[in-house]
């Protein structure tokens, strides 16, 4: 896939795609809690009843989404990662899941897109938290061009979808859907999720390993992983841009009858990193930079 929108942020693609969908589909409604409300101002002027800003009220934001869905609407809810998933977590569980209704949740900020804001604005536990609830599809695009196809499919459905937008990105976009074979190898499999792919490719340059790419982690493409392991060997390195090991149980299920070894990289669970700086600084702390990934791959497959 070629890159068409090299300079656009994922959030801009999100706003444009949803704004266009509002014009086309009367089911679509947007609910914000101040964050990005201004970006939807033009859409709100056209659709004042379907672009709703609730102020800084995240519990109400999800409750409103649940109520909209109960009337047959397709709510799109958006905020910074911790304020979308962590603060109103019980609303996600009860106002969406327990009511048996859906919504499209789109977060920005990733795990630590801009660490100058500190711990309060970091959300590395988002996917692990949603993983405690049934019925969620989780997309982790690694390039702005991957956002529109994932989002358009989500808007057309009525299920529960989480779209994890980030300012981190790979140089090139890849097809969405199941796991994509980026490069074949014979000495094990590295599964790169979302924006970690470029660091993975840099880390494994010169190593004979298969690289798979995932922009969707729930459902987890178990068949894709099994096929890759069958061809390349049962050493698996999972590289996720959120809490380390979030998908380890999926790998275990996928390879339940295959003796295998797994190393799961991601945001560390053992410490709260009380530091500011850049996202690259934090990648290094968590072993998610090319050097850290290379060391882990060599240790497992070498």
């Amino acid at each position: 896939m070629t890159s068409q929108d090299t300079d656009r942020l994922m959030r801009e693609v999100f706003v444009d795609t949803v704004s266009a969908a509002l014009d086309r589909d009367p089911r679509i409604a947007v609910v914000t809690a101040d964050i990005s409300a201004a970006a939807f101002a033009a859409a709100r002027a056209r659709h004042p009843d379907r672009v709703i800003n609730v102020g800084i009220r995240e519990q109400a934001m999800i409750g409103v989404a649940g109520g909209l869905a109960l009337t047959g609407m397709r709510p799109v809810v958006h905020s910074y990662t911790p304020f979308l998933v962590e603060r109103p977590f019980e609303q996600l569980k009860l106002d969406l899941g327990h009511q048996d209704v859906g919504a499209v949740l789109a977060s920005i900020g990733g795990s630590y897109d801009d660490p100058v804001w500190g711990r309060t604005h970091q959300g590395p536990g988002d996917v692990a938290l949603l993983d405690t609830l049934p019925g969620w599809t989780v997309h982790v695009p690694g390039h702005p061009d991957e956002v529109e196809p994932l989002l358009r499919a989500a808007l057309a459905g009525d299920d529960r979808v989480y779209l994890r937008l980030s300012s981190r990105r790979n140089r090139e976009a890849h097809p969405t859907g199941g796991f994509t074979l980026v490069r074949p190898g014979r000495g094990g499999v590295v599964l790169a999720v979302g924006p970690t792919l470029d660091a993975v490719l840099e880390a494994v340059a010169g190593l004979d390993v298969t690289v798979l790419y995932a922009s969707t982690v729930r459902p987890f493409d178990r068949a894709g992983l099994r096929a890759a392991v069958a061809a390349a060997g049962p050493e698996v390195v999972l590289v996720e841009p959120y809490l380390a090991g979030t998908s380890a149980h999926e790998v275990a299920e996928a390879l339940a009858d295959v003796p295998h070894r797994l190393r799961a990289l991601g945001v560390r669970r053992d410490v709260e990193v009380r530091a500011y700086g850049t996202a690259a600084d934090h990648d290094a702390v968590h072993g998610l930079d090319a050097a850290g990934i290379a060391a882990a791959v060599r240790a497992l497959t070498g």
Partner: protein
Amino acid sequence: MATRELAGLFERMTGDEKHEWAAASTVDVLWVLYDRVLDVRPATVDDPDRDRFLLSKGHGPMAFYAVLAAKGFLDPDLLGTWTEFGSPLGQHPDRVLVPGAEIGSGSLGHGLGLGVGTALGLRAQRRQSRVVVLLGDGELDEGSNHESIALAARLGLDRLTAVVVDNGSASLGWPGGIAGRFAVEGWHTATVDGRDHDALYRAFTAEHPGRPSAVVAVIDPGEWG
């Protein structure tokens, strides 16, 4: 009205004497709503233009189930299966399991947000349906309600009614009264005797153009003994 019949339905769940039925704080509010106010019947439970009743205070749902059975939403024979494995009727209602239940509830502080969203969805679809959410005074302790109280008024949701059954169960109380919490945000409010059917009816049918309506239905805590 059919209080005697309701009491009989209630006893099929509780197996208890009538005093427990009489003590149910929500029964009169529920009966007035389903008997005289809400435009919803078993035949219209899937009609997008039906009125919606959202039981936010999901604890103690026996009166709700009894009213649903009396009005034909629920097979009265199901009441005897209450809380059994495989029964649709639990200690908290589940909308997926209970015919006529608009939401599943139990954890406090969720119904009003869902009600605001429901009212917004109906407004976006140009429907005139009413949305009535029943809360308890203790439930108002949950901060999520206060997000929704402010929001509903700011958005001018005039098809939304919150009825707060006030039996004085909030541990720390609401000094100055419950209605004031709504009034200060711009809601139309009425505080009435929660056992007085005509007063409840008048409160539920009062005009409140441009803003939501809060009805505080006061139940004498002394009734609880």
